[in-house]
């Protein structure tokens, strides 16, 4: 039998450090909100660290290792959303553990009904496919919105390109890098490389001249044509973020759909703020639901879109599609 109890009291432990603004006897839910997750074993917790974008500077990593050796199990766990977790921490050690992590400015994450740590791929900094700087934006979200209380959990992710490794359609709010190409006839030598490079069949070569015929509706905005063109006749028309809202994974996954394209870095915080504000309002009438489940109600969806339309006007797609259920259990 696994002993699930805690020494002191049922569902409450005496913690000598501040968690979620509380000290003393704290219940498990509050602890969990503060990134301290009760394990099945007596007195032991998993401590989730805050690692925005899955990037952990070596100075922090060294400190994490030092602290883990002292207070945690003999491994760390990499959470599905890119954070380092320290398992098997006795709650009596919370204070010391927290203080020592703070020496390297390593913070503990947060769970529960709030804005979670943003996830991100490596982005354009060194990944050849990268179009937008995901790590920079993950840091912006981490600074501005992390732990903001919400009606339910709220996850944000950033993918640098349409390969979408950070699964922007499965997050409450997802941002995916995109670049729209334009073609300059005078520079083109009709080499046909772009038609070979395009994985979407959006470019065909004219049989006579070899020059490209572009089918814009098939383009995913990945930029392969721009990268492969030997004469730079394919160029950047505009680039920015595709925004998807309402996705989630879990027991009943929902696919979040695109609401805007080519949004600049500078406009992202405003978009997030507007959507957070709307979700706070909707949560008051709809209760504890993920934003994707709320947005599958047509009147709520229309309300969000018309509210965003006032603020962002043409930056919003003319007729965005509602999030929809991705049935994985009974198909």
């Amino acid at each position, binding site marked *: 039998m696994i002993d699930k109890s805690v020494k002191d009291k049922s569902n409450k432990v005496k913690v000598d450090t501040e968690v979620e603004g509380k000290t003393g006897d704290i219940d498990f839910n509050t602890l969990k909100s503060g990134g301290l997750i009760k394990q099945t074993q007596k007195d032991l917790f998993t401590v989730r660290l805050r690692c925005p974008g899955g990037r952990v500077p070596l100075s922090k990593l060294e400190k994490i290792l030092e602290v883990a050796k002292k207070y945690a199990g003999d491994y760390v766990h990499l959470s599905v959303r890119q954070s380092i977790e320290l398992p098997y921490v006795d709650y009596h050690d919370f204070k010391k553990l927290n203080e020592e992590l703070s020496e390297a400015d390593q913070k503990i994450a947060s769970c529960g009904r709030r804005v979670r740590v943003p996830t991100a791929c490596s982005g354009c900094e060194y990944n*050849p496919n990268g179009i937008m700087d995901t790590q920079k934006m993950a840091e912006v979200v981490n600074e501005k919105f992390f732990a903001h209380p919400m009606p339910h959990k709220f996850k944000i992710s950033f993918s640098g390109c349409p390969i979408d490794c950070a699964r922007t359609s499965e997050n409450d709010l997802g941002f995916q890098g995109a670049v729209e190409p334009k073609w300059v006839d005078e*520079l083109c030598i009709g*080499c*046909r*490389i772009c038609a*070979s*490079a395009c*994985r979407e069949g959006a470019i065909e070569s004219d049989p006579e001249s070899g020059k490209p015929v572009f089918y814009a509706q098939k383009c995913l905005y990945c930029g*392969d044509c721009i*990268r*492969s*063109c*030997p*004469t*730079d006749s394919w160029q950047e028309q505009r680039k920015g973020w595709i925004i998807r809202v309402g996705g989630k994974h879990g027991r009943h996954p929902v696919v979040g759909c695109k609401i805007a394209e080519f949004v600049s870095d500078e406009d992202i915080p405003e978009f997030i703020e507007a959507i957070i504000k709307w979700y706070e309002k909707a949560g008051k009438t709809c209760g504890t639901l993920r934003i994707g489940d709320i947005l599958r109600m047509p009147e709520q969806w229309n309300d969000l879109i018309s509210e965003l339309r006032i603020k962002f006007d043409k930056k919003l797609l003319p007729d965005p599609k509602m999030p929809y259920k991705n049935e994985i259990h009974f198909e």
Partner: protein
Amino acid sequence: MVEDMVSSQLDIRGVMCPINIVQIKLKMKEIENDGILEIVLDEGETMQNVPRSIKKEGHKIVKVEKIPEGCYKLLVRKNGGGLK
């Protein structure tokens, strides 16, 4: 004719990424700046990846020719980045 200036040849048909890109890199080391390397490669995935990495390395594709049996011939000028 740029074909007359070919200083080296490389056949990477049937060679997968990223080995083919490594082979190009090694071959390029043997060639002087502005020398021309002729590369024969398969269409499909190789043509999706190889030209863009050649460009990224700062070389210049000066000619592309479709040859029989689903293959391409590229003429690449070493460190010839920029428009010619």
